């Protein structure tokens, strides 16, 4: 069996699904009105199977990520994210290990620092900060014993993150960016490496071509980029040289936005992976979901 650290990159792929608004793979600075709720559900299918260790290792992580956003004031929005995860590892020789269950709960806030509005346009900058609580099961076992931490539904650790998010939205489309730093802590003799990431999203309205006063639904073409750098993890205090590294995803997608509902789908394609040692490389991430305004 490969060391847990070789699978550590799997964890970060679920981290971006906090977003209550415009981009598909990360957050936004667009408003959540005071007293308003937004619910987002997103299916995320992740496959990592490009095994540089030639052990035929393939890991699938299927997740349903639920997000609830609440506008606490005109500037402060609160978010809660809870994934339901199904993880499976397959290895040459017929080894198969799996788990499923609720993952870790993430709670965070976003405060709008700057806002400039015009007719049919807005420019906003916000700060985000949050914590991830170890609510998921982190001591699941199978016939081979205790599952490695990256295969557990929960990490067992209290983690935190801070960042800034900016959005420029017009009636023709928008541009969004987010810069975050996630600090990991140790649990069960394992500590995932801290993660820095830069996310970019460009959206263009493709329908309707020309706006009418009655236009109340848009279809957007979406192109996103995710640059993710993870530091090496440690196992029992020892640095795992087969973990961490840098991955860049290019993410084409499509989004339909009406007054009450947003439907969206995207595929994250890893165009650059510079991972340490025999860390498992990512093949793709598929995302599809919806958001509902309440």
């Amino acid at each position: 069996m490969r060391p847990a650290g070789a699978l550590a990159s799997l964890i970060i792929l679920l981290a971006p699904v906090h977003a209550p608004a415009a981009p598909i793979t990360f957050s936004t600075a667009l408003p959540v009105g005071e007293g308003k709720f937004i619910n987002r559900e997103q299916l995320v299918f992740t496959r990592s199977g490009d095994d540089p260790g030639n052990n035929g290792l393939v890991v699938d992580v299927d997740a349903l990520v639920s997000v609830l956003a609440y506008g606490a004031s005109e500037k402060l929005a609160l978010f809660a994210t809870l994934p339901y995860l199904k993880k499976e590892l397959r290895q040459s020789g017929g080894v198969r290990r799996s788990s499923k269950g609720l993952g870790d709960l993430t709670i965070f806030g976003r405060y709008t620092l700057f806002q400039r509005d015009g007719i049919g346009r807005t420019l906003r900058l916000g700060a985000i900060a949050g914590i991830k609580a170890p609510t998921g099961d982190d001591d699941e076992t199978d016939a081979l014993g205790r599952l490695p931490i990256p295969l557990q539904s929960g990490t067992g650790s209290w983690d935190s993150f801070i960042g800034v998010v900016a959005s420029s939205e017009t009636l023709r489309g928008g541009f969004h960016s987010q810069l975050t730093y996630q600090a990991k802590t140790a649990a069960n003799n394992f500590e995932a490496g801290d993660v820095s990431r830069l996310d970019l999203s460009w959206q263009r309205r493709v329908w309707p071509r020309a706006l009418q006063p009655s236009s109340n639904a848009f279809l957007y073409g979406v192109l996103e980029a995710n640059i993710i750098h993870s530091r090496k993890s440690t196992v029992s205090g020892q640095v795992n040289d087969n973990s961490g590294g840098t991955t860049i995803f290019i993410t084409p997608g499509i989004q339909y936005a009406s007054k009450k509902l947003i439907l969206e789908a995207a595929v994250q394609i890893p165009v650059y992976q510079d991972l340490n040692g025999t860390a498992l490389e990512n093949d793709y991430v598929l995302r599809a979901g919806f958001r509902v305004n309440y």
Partner: protein
Amino acid sequence: MKKLIGSVLLFLAMSTAAFADGTQYRMRVDGLACPYCAYGIEKKLGKIDGVEKIDVDLNNGLVTVNVAEGVTLTDAQMAKLFTDAGFTFRSMVTVPLDEKKAH
């Protein structure tokens, strides 16, 4: 007899129209950049007693609200409503609905 029924129906129709007269408020609101954004303000406006119709023209940043007779919206009230919703209220013009019909 037919003339009598016709006259009664005409009178009833005119009476209904008279009772339906109210006020139209046309508001300039900045920051409305997508349909999904607009829903929040429609919902907030819809909670005000007497609001009968809401139209959001994203292209021109215009929110038009028809209210029943006797109902008044104030600049301060609308400024707070739109600020709370995350947008910027610029101005409001009042047009009596009966005057609008006359034109």
